[in-house]
């Protein structure tokens, strides 16, 4: 079981080379297969996640949640997807059509790109970049532009306001997000995600870096526009924020991308702090799935419990609390490393 997917990939390469492909060509085909797999994983995950989110919300609100279609309402999301696909595609007449159309596409592309560096099991990583963490952060930062495009292209005050807010929020929370990861990077001594997982063989970084984990979690919630920080949508204030004018599948793409981001960030959290794919008894890829889903459940739990924070509080929380705390954490971590190194560890 442990090497189930690796074996599949290996036999695929062997088969391809048996067909007469060069090893480079076989790698290319494998890469394409991996991309298709990622898209499939993302889609299936989103279907499960939307169902899960509604179920979690239902349970917290003492309801059952969706339960009509399929076992425990599992097919509700599929029905919703079909509904969204068949909806009329409305583009406001005053909208900037090119920007309006491309924004959701870029948003989902960027979300899918995040998966390239995530180790989904022992040796199951598409590209082991030596700057993996940095790749994740910088690619994730591009999604601000997509929201801005959506907000601007819609030519609607609510949309623009939602986009502005979310961009301001995401830019200010990128800094504590990156800073809180720095502590882990300093201990692991590498920016590569596989090295970081390997460094957690004995002890998870959540124990060594509890403050970093909490700050990362808060900043990630803001980056994902979720829970108490859902500024771009902010239903009660901005109707639907940046997505106000979107309908049908375009809107669904945003939704899809948000959940894709959620999975990616949760996977990053479990990789950086929860020991990645390390775990006893079960195969490594099952462990990462379990850990990722646990993190996502916490995200959902928070979302359905807390009210939305106010914009100015949000900004001042980032700049006045999170960033100083993460900076102090880096300082303490650095001092600790030097101290322990001096002790001869």
């Amino acid at each position, binding site marked *: 079981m442990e090497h189930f997917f690796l074996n599949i990939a290996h036999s695929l390469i062997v088969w391809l080379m048996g067909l007469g492909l060069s090893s480079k060509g076989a790698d290319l085909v494998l890469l394409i297969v991996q991309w298709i797999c990622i898209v499939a994983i993302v889609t299936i995950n989103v279907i499960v996640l939307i169902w899960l989110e509604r179920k979690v*919300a239902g349970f*917290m*609100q*003492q*309801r059952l949640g969706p339960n009509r279609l399929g076992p425990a309402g599992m097919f509700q999301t599929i029905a919703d997807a079909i509904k969204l696909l068949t909806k009329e595609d409305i583009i406001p007449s005053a909208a900037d059509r090119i920007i309006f159309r491309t924004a959701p596409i870029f948003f989902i592309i960027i979300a899918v790109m995040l998966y390239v560096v995530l180790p989904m099991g022992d040796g199951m990583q598409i590209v082991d970049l030596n700057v993996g963490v940095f790749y994740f952060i910088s690619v994730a930062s591009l999604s601000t532009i997509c929201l801005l495009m959506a907000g601007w292209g819609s030519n609607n*005050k*609510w949309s623009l*306001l939602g986009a502005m807010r979310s961009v301001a929020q995401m830019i200010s929370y990128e800094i504590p997000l990156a800073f809180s990861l720095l502590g882990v990077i300093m201990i692991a001594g590498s920016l590569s995600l596989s090295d970081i997982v390997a460094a957690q063989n004995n002890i998870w970084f959540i124990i060594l870096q509890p403050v970093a984990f909490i700050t990362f979690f808060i900043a990630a919630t803001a980056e994902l526009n979720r829970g*108490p920080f*859902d500024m771009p949508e*902010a*239903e*009660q*204030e901005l*109707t639907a924020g940046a997505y106000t004018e979107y309908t049908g599948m375009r809107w669904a793409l945003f939704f899809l991308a948000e959940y894709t981001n959620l999975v990616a960030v949760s996977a990053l959290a479990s990789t950086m702090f929860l020991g990645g794919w390390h775990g006893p008894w079960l195969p490594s890829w099952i462990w990462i799935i379990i850990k990722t889903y646990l993190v996502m459940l916490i995200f959902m739990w928070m979302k*359905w*419990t*807390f*009210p*939305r*924070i*106010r*914009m*100015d*509080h949000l900004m001042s929380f980032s700049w006045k609390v999170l960033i100083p705390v993460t900076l102090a954490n880096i300082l303490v971590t650095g001092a600790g490393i030097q101290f322990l190194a001096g002790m001869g560890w």
Partner: protein
Amino acid sequence: MLRTEQFTINIGPQHPSTHGGLHVEAVMDGEFIVDAIVHLGYVHRSVEKIAESRTYPQYVPYTSRLDYLASHLPTLGYCQAVEKMLGVAVPERAEYIRIIMAEFSRIASHLLFIGSCAIDLGATTGLIYCLRDRERIMDMFEMTSGQRLIASYMRIGGVSEDLPDTFIPAARSFIADFPEMIAEYDGLIIGNEILQARLKGVGRLNADDAIAYGVSGPNLRACGIDYDIRKAEPYGIYDRFDFTVPLAENGDSWDRLLVRMEEMQQSIHIIEQALNQLPEGEVKAKVPRIIKPAEGIEVYHRIESSKGELGYYIVADGGEKPYRLHVRAPSFINLMVLPMISKGGKLQDIIANIATLDPVLGESDR
């Protein structure tokens, strides 16, 4: 300084958190509100004009539809106003039933206020818990009147039917469970630091302005003014009960929330006393089938509704139907301070302000 341009944002009439058809035209300078213009009338049903073509008893169901969140209260006000015109004495038992129903309505209204306040600030689950408990009150209304929301239970001269046997146990069990409910709201909604940060110091209304604008009800008491018609000018049999009028100091959104939380507990206290004192007897006075107050009688009767001072001004012309009926709707008057308290705040604050002023649009548009 850079010269900036103001822009307007239309909050409503179709917007998730305007409690019906409220339309606020917010003039913004960036995220700050320069002015907020309240546009009303989207739920106008000409309830006052309808009164002129209905006989006095026929008008009772329409009053229930004024403040549909606490439907016994406007009905109570109307019935008492007509009784005042006719000089009818209401039987003791009916008076007590009325008090119980009115106070349960107040709790139902305040529960929805707290829930909608939570959901307007983004905490969906808070609303569901409040609605869950509100349902029990609705069940009690269904027991007595047969309708859950728009009960039209009270009649001129009493109430339509006596309490059923199931009512008193249900009411007692609700009272017994109430502290637990309050504890849950305290934990989930009131105690939440994010919510406190959103409400504290937001939409501050000072006492002088409140009086000048004619604000009444919990919104007024949140400014520290001890004025409750149940105490100041007791109607019905309110003078027989022992309760305090909860007050706050700052008049901000947070105080408005706290005052209502406290008020619910006082209502429970009143209901408890009323249930203990409930006498046996008739529930409806002998009222002529055709009510014809003498020409020239005018009456103004006011009660403390869950939103504030709810007054009925009725002029009779000697016929079966009122010559003119006017409703002093507390929501309407309370809403008028929205521009004043929102100025200088943020866009998100105006949502909190609307939520904590607790308007019900059926009443303010009439």
